[in-house]
């Protein structure tokens, strides 16, 4: 059946499926952290699902001041802003050591605690952990 202009203008009221990507991999040593971030950016750009990221413990280095110097550093610079542009959040849950490498502003704006993470995971239709 041919799609009419009215069909095209219809607002899609169906809520987007929520995807939570939790990254544990240390971006200083493990390329899987960059792959997870690439996945998040490459999926959210199509706007069919809502993507949020949690950078857990050492993974929070991906938002550190030296992120560009990490292996695959360009991935973090390219895809983390893309997730935010599409309405997603990039949270951090740094351990004590990683916290020292992060700007205070980054922590204040993006920090998430365990109960809130549990809530995010419960709300998500898809949870992917790297």
């Amino acid at each position, binding site marked *: 059946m041919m799609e009419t202009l009215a069909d095209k203008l219809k607002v899609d009221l169906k809520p987007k*499926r929520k*995807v939570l990507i939790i990254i544990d991999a240390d971006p200083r040593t493990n390329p*899987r952290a960059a*792959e997870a971030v*690439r*996945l998040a950016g*490459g*999926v959210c750009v*199509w706007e*069919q*699902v809502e993507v949020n990221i949690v950078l857990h413990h050492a993974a929070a280095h991906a938002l550190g001041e030296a992120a560009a110097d990490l292996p695959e550093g360009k991935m973090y610079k390219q895809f983390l802003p893309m997730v935010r542009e599409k309405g997603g959040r990039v949270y951090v849950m740094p351990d004590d050591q990683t916290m020292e490498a992060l700007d205070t502003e980054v922590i204040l704006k993006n920090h998430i605690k365990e109960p809130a993470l549990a809530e995010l995971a419960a709300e998500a*239709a*898809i*949870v*992917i*952990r*790297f």
Partner: protein
Amino acid sequence: MEQESKARKLGILISVAPTHASFHHGLQLAAAALTAKDEVYLYCLDDAVAGVEDQRVQTLRGHGLRLFACAYACQRRKIVPGENALYGGLTLLNDVMSATDRFVSFN
């Protein structure tokens, strides 16, 4: 009353190498779902692209598994895409995530 006959759709993401236990677990889930007459969509990402030609994967494909693999991951590993899977970008994974009833990942 008419019975609902529409098959359920299961999406599976695997990103670990074929030697990893999680790869095997992902395939076991795919096999169980295919046995239950579900439609199963498997996307191989990262190290899992090395498993596309794996006999276990191809056997499942012979039983109806829809098999996709990340073209970028293949390029980085110098794996030449063949005809035993559909190779593409993350748009394929996005489609699997958004169009399936359930989605599970093995990383």
